Structure formats: C-alpha cells, structure tokens
C-alpha cells in the first residue's frame, strides 16, 4: 500500500489540565478506598476484606494482563493499525510493579483467609495430600512472585523501549520488540494460566477445569480492549490525537471487542455445558454453589450481561463507528468483567464462612458488601493514577514508530 508522503505528526504530550478532576480524583479515591477498606475491614470483618480485596486485585490484574497481551500481540503480528493506541496499552501494561505491591497484603495478611487448602489438615483431605507437591505455601509464593515479576519486566520493557524509539525512530527497536514478543507470548500464556489456577481455581481446591486458563484469558483480552476504547476516546474527547485518531480505529477496536465478547461466550458456554452435561459431582459443585439462592439470578445476569447484551450492541457497523455508542458498550463490558470476577471469587467467601462456622461448605446467595466497592475503587484509583502518570511522562502515541504512517491511514475496506 502506498501513501502520500505527508509529514509525520510530532509527539504529543498529555495535557493533564484538559482532563478535569481526573488527575486529582484517581489518587484521591485510590487512597480513600484502600485506607478505609483496610481500616474498616481489618477491624470488623477481615475475611470479607480478604475476598473483597482479592476481587479488586484480580479485576486490576486481568485488565493489565490483557493490555500486555495486546502489546505483545501487536509486535508479534507486526500489526499497523494499533500503533496509534499502543502507548496507552503499554502504560496500562506497565502497572504491574504497582500490582506487585498491591499483592503484598494478599500474601502477608489474607492468604490463609482466602485459600482453604493452606489451613486444611491433610489427614482429612486425601485429595489435597495428593496435590501437596503443587499446592504448598513456599511453592505457591514462589510462583506468585515469578508471575508478577515476569509481567512487570515485560510491561516495563515494552514501554521503555517504545519510549526510547520516540527519540530517534530507530527501527531496530521495533525488530527487537518483535523478536522478544515471540519468546514472551508463551511465557505470558503459562503465567496467566497458572496465576488463574493458583489465585482463583485453587480457592476451591477440589474443583478443576482444563479450560480455566482460556476462560480467564478471554476476560482479560475483552476487558482490556474495552478499557482501551474508553481511554482512547476519552483522550480524543479532551482534544488529544486531533487529526490522527479516526473512526476506523474505533471500528477495529469495536470488532475486536465483539470478537472477544463472542470468544468469552464460547469459552464460558463450553466450560459450563461440558460440566453440566457430564454431571460428575467433583466438577458440578462449582456451578451448584453459583446456582444457589440469589446466585442463580446473578449467574443468569452474567450470561445475559456479559455475552448477549454486548453481542447485540456491537453487531452493526454504526455501533462500532459512533463514539458514544462504542464507549457506552465498552463501559458496560468493563462492568460485566467485574461482575464475572466477582462471580468467580465471592461464592468462595461464603464457603469459607460456613466452614469456619462449623457447617458443611455451602453458599447462601448474592450478598454484596460495601468493602467490595471500597476495595475495587481503591485498586482502580491507584491503577488509574499510575496510568495517567505514565502517560504524562512522554508522548501519548509512539511518534517515531516506523508503522505510524500505516496506522494513521488504516481503513476497514479490502
């Protein structure tokens, strides 16, 4: 494809003053949310706080992991359309050092509240005794450290080198990042899968599903694409990327959001359907817990809200090309991602509570707690502030990327 040789746009700084109260709001709600959650939760209900916090952490983690996935994919596939938005992805993916810090309370305060297997007597649970070589505390912490370190190094490497390219436009950096991506993608896949096994699947250590890593990945890719749509359109709305960002970029991001909405539906349906159909007790408990009491309505809402509604909302072309429509859908998808993570984690709180009360493990129904909201607002506030800070450190798009010209001229027609 050939293009008219127009000059490349010069680097553009994030104008914090155009963002209104956001630069103040993010750190404010981050601090207030986390401090109030910890003070109130530790004083009144540490177990509730542990689960609320894990929920909030997982939402943040999955969105950042998704952003890292899109960054790696962009390089591995030598994509062009996404160059303009790549700095945003890189900035979100560079939040992992913060997530590493945010994970410390999980290790030092909450782990024994969260993971039943850490406190179970092996003589009572022969299945756990079998799993001991994998599910033991030293190895568990070692793995957690490895995942978060890998994600941190990968995220920062991609942002730093991309920022360095802004200075001189060295094409060798593009090649280096591409070749690194080939090696990082398999590592990313393994880290994400086992992080999913460790943090979420082992909350109920008897349950297992080979699909679990793929299921988590589907949510990561979908929610981070929704966040990218929101951030990009937010920047455009506040006067950034003028003349660079076009309706075609929204269209492509909308198509990917649609594709991953469908992918999530496909994966979650397959997982549910196969366990429902085979009806083997050790597998069906996962869904029985989530179909008890008001959890049943919640599960139905998850299916409708996470798949059917965005599927219909994104089906037509105008839905992807009209900024307010795609932003509304993206916001809904992010909300539904939180609903999904909540659905994965929170029934386990009730299982733990019933065990501690000396009853058989059982769920009662959907009982939201203010701590859920405080923890979520806190974590997202901290991450939002980090992203804005990272974005304000340099150009908001890779100004000297060799594929920038192609990204600006992208169209959706063959």
């Amino acid at each position, binding site marked *: *494809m*050939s293009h008219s040789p127009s000059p490349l746009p010069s680097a553009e700084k994030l104008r914090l003053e155009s963002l209104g109260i956001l630069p103040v709001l993010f750190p404010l709600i981050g601090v207030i949310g986390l401090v109030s959650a910890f003070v109130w939760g530790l004083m009144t209900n540490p177990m509730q706080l542990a689960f609320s916090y894990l929920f909030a952490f997982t939402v943040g983690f999955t969105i950042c992991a998704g952003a890292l996935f899109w960054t790696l994919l962009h390089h591995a596939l030598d994509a062009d359309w996404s160059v303009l938005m790549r700095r945003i992805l890189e900035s979100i993916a560079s939040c992992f050092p913060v997530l590493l810090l945010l994970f410390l309370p999980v290790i030092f305060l909450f782990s024994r509240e969260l993971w039943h297997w850490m406190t179970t007597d092996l003589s009572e649970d022969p299945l756990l005794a079998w799993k001991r070589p994998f599910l033991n505390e030293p190895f568990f912490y070692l793995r957690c450290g490895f995942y978060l370190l890998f994600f941190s190094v990968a995220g920062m490497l991609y942002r730093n080198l991309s920022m360095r390219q802004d200075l001189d436009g060295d094409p060798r950096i593009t090649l280096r990042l591409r070749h690194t991506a080939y090696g990082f993608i398999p590592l990313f896949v393994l880290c994400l899968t086992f992080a999913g096994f460790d943090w979420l699947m082992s909350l109920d250590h008897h349950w297992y599903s080979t699909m679990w890593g793929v299921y988590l990945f589907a949510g990561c890719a979908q929610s981070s694409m929704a966040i990218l749509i929101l951030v990009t359109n937010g920047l455009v709305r506040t006067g950034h990327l003028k003349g660079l960002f076009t309706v075609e970029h929204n269209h492509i991001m909308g198509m990917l959001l649609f594709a991953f909405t469908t992918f999530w539906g496909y994966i979650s349906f397959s997982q549910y359907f196969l366990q429902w159909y085979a009806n083997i007790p050790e597998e069906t408990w996962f869904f029985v817990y989530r179909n008890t009491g008001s959890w049943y309505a919640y599960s139905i809402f998850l299916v409708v809200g996470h798949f059917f509604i965005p599927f219909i909302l994104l089906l037509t072309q105008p839905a992807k090309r009209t900024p307010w429509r795609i932003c509304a859908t993206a916001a809904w998808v992010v909300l539904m991602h939180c609903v999904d993570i909540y659905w994965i984690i929170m029934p386990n709180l009730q299982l733990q509570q019933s065990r501690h009360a000396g009853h058989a493990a059982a769920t009662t129904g959907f009982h939201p707690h203010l701590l859920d909201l405080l923890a979520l607002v806190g974590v997202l506030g901290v991450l939002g502030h980090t992203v804005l800070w990272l974005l304000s450190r340099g150009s908001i798009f890779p100004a000297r990327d060799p594929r920038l010209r192609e990204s600006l001229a992208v169209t959706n027609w063959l």
Partner: protein
Amino acid sequence: MRADNPSSQAAFAKAAAYLERQPLVSNHRPLSWITQHVCQIVEERAPKWWWILTFLFGGMATLVPAMLTYLVSTGVGVWGLNVPVCWAWDITNFVFWIGIGHAGTLISAILFLTRQKWRTSINRSAEAMTIFAVICAGIFPAFHVGRVWMAWFLAPIPNANAIWQNFRSPLLWDVFAVSTYFTVSLIFWYLGLIPDLASLRDRATTRLRQMAYGLLALGWRGSNRHWTHYEKTYLILAGISTPLVLSVHSVVSFDFATSIVPGWHTTIFPPYFVAGAIFGGFAMVLTLLIPFREIYHLHDLVTDKHIDNMCKIILLTGSLVGYAYSMEFFIAWYSGNPFEIYAFTNRAFGPYWWAYWAMITCNVAAPQLFWFKYCRQNPWVVLAIVMFPNTGMWFERFVIIVTSIHRDFLPSSWGYFSPTWVDISLFIGTIGLFVFLFLLFVRFLPIINMFEVKGITPQADPHAHDAEENHAHSRQTPTHTPSQVHA
C-alpha cells in the same frame, strides 16, 4: 540509540529496509498477466502428468465404493471394531478429514473479516480443499451407523415408525453441524467463483466451454449492481461462516467431551479441537499448494510471504495444541482422580505409547522448526515439515479415541485395537478421492481467485498515482473498486 558511526547507520538502514512491507503480488505483474496466467491453467491442454496423477488417484478412489460395498453387504464387523473399542479408525478418519476442512473457511471467512489481504491468493484452493475433505469425512459416520439406508432417520422427518431423534445427543448435533458447514462452505466457494467463471466464459474459444462456464457464471456481467450485491452477500456469508468454523469442530469435540470417559471428558476440548483443526488444515493447504505453485509457476501470486504466514499459523496452532496437551496432563494429575491419571499415563506409557509419542513429535515438536526463518522460506523444507502435522493430526484423533476406551474400568474389558485391511483400504481410498477431486478442480476451475488478487495489487489502490511519483515503473492506470479491476 542512533549512533554516528557508519556501521551503526548501516544496521539502522538494514532494519528500516527489513520493515518494508512485501508486495502481495511480486514483480509488479499487471492485471492482464494475472488473468492470463491463471486462466491458461484451465485453458491449455491437460498435461501428461495430470492424466497420470488423475488415473492414479482416481484408481485409488475406487477403493471407497469397493470397500463400502463389501462393508454394506457383509456388515460393520469387517472393520476392526470390537468391544471395548467400538470407535476407532472410522471416527478417527472422520475427525481427521473434518479437521482438514477447517482451513478453507477460516481463510475465506475469518481472514476476510480481519482484512488480511494475503488471503486472496490462497482462499480459492483452500475452500475447494475444505469441500473435498468434508465429503471424505461424511462417508465414515454415515456407514458407521450400520444400516446406511436408514441414515435418513437422522433427519428430523416425521415418519411412520414414530422414530424421533434424540436431540440431547451430540452425535445428532454433528449431523446438523457438518451438513450446515458443508452447505455454507459450498455456497461461499461457489459465490466467490462466479466473477472468475465469467472471465473464463468471456475468454472461451469453444462453444462447449462458453456454454458450460456461461451456465455456471449465472449471467454475471460485472455491472455495478452485480458487484454491490456480490460484496454484500460475501460479507454476510463470511459473518455466517465464522461461527460455523468454530462450531463444527466444537460439536465434534462434544462427541467425546460430553461423556464421562476419562481422557475424553475435559473442558478444554472445544477450542483445542478448533486449534488442532486449523493446524491440520493449514498443513494440508501447504501440502497441496506448494507443488502446484511450482508446476504452474505461481510464485508471483503465492509468494514466499504467503508461505511464511501459513508456516507461522502452523507454528502458533501447533503450540496451542501443545498447550492443550499439557493442560490435560496437568489437570489430570491435579484432579487427583485415579481414573483420569491412569488414562493419561496409559496414553503415554501404555500399549499405544508409540501413537502418543508420534503425536507429540509431529504436532508439538516438528512445527517448532518454523521458528527458523530458513525453514519457512524454503518451500521444499516447508513441504517436508508439514508432512508431520498431516500425520500427527491423524495420530491425535487415534490417540484420543482409541487409547481412552481400549481399557475399560474393569480389566476383563480390556482390549487392543488393530485395523483390518478394510479399515486401511477405505482410508487410502478417501485419500485417493480427496486428491482426485482436487486434481479435477485444478483442471476445470481457476485455482487462484483472480479478481480478489487484482483488488489488492498496487494498481487497484485509489492512491496508486501517488505511488507513481515514487515508483516510476508502476505502469497501470489507477482503478478504484474491485468491480473496475475485473478484467
């Protein structure tokens, strides 16, 4: 990072040159060259090798009716199936062929929706291959039912015996999934052929040829209205086909995964089967395309870049399949379920160990060679490597099906499956049928989608005249829409 010394500047320039996009049609071929080069394959006299190969594979294909006649007249017992292994080569071959049929529609539908322009020179032959593979696949379950003349009971037609299908069985969903896939793939393929059939009609030198291609071209005149309708229909069909690509092999995987058989029941089966199918399908596309590219000198249309891309897809999907294998193994251990654990250790170290390790070698290890550029760039090396996925994907289905059921829960119900000569001959027959149909396709239909390839040439770009300032050798008049590119 930019250094001032000359060696660094050279590296800088080399990297910049490396990043230049390769053209999808090499040597600045004009539009007329594309028409002439593709059409003459069909128009010139059939070469001698074509007759030899057609007779050879046509002869092989006669094994299909011969074996089926023997089977129907004698009974399904002529296959090596027996308790506990009641599914073996038949279902293995069915899944193998269905899997091969995935690349075509993936290329034509999913790569179309994701605007992958390189698909244009390979989609036609891949789609043809899809259809022939599904034909081969359908033979096995249809005759496995035993009384094939009763196969119509699978269709929900009210009948005198008040027999109604069990809609809760994935085997029945298979009937619908595969027949829908076949129908839509056929329509999709034929629709994409119409403008090219019209080109053949317009170039025809004999009355018979003109009549035949004229009938098939459905009165195509290349008018603006025709193109508008065509492009809308094509987009809609691509949208319909995309979920079909995923659904067919997902439903095939349900045949196994909905059961409670250890080794069959695992939740990752649907995407794992789809990845495997794309893996095997692309391997077969390359197997067929590389020889024909050499014979018909199609290097300017099916460039090294196309082969490189397909090798990368094979590497990716092969690694995804490897991921699924390791998840199955890990979760079997993690489950703590002794039957699951036994199923997988038996797979790797039991009597069928050779099949398991053949599968791992062919599907996970061999594609890793595509990490090396040398292996992706030499077509003969590529051809040698893709033979591994071709074999490995057959072994995968054999491993899943046979090793999971050959040792039932009670050791008194253990067995070992060996194929009979009928099993083997029928499979060889379907290979013959598949290649025979493909040879007919090469002879009578344009194997490259001419009008779509023209649409992605630099000449078809509305900004081609901008390029002329930079590239003095661009001699073509700029054209604006695919309709006007149609020569």
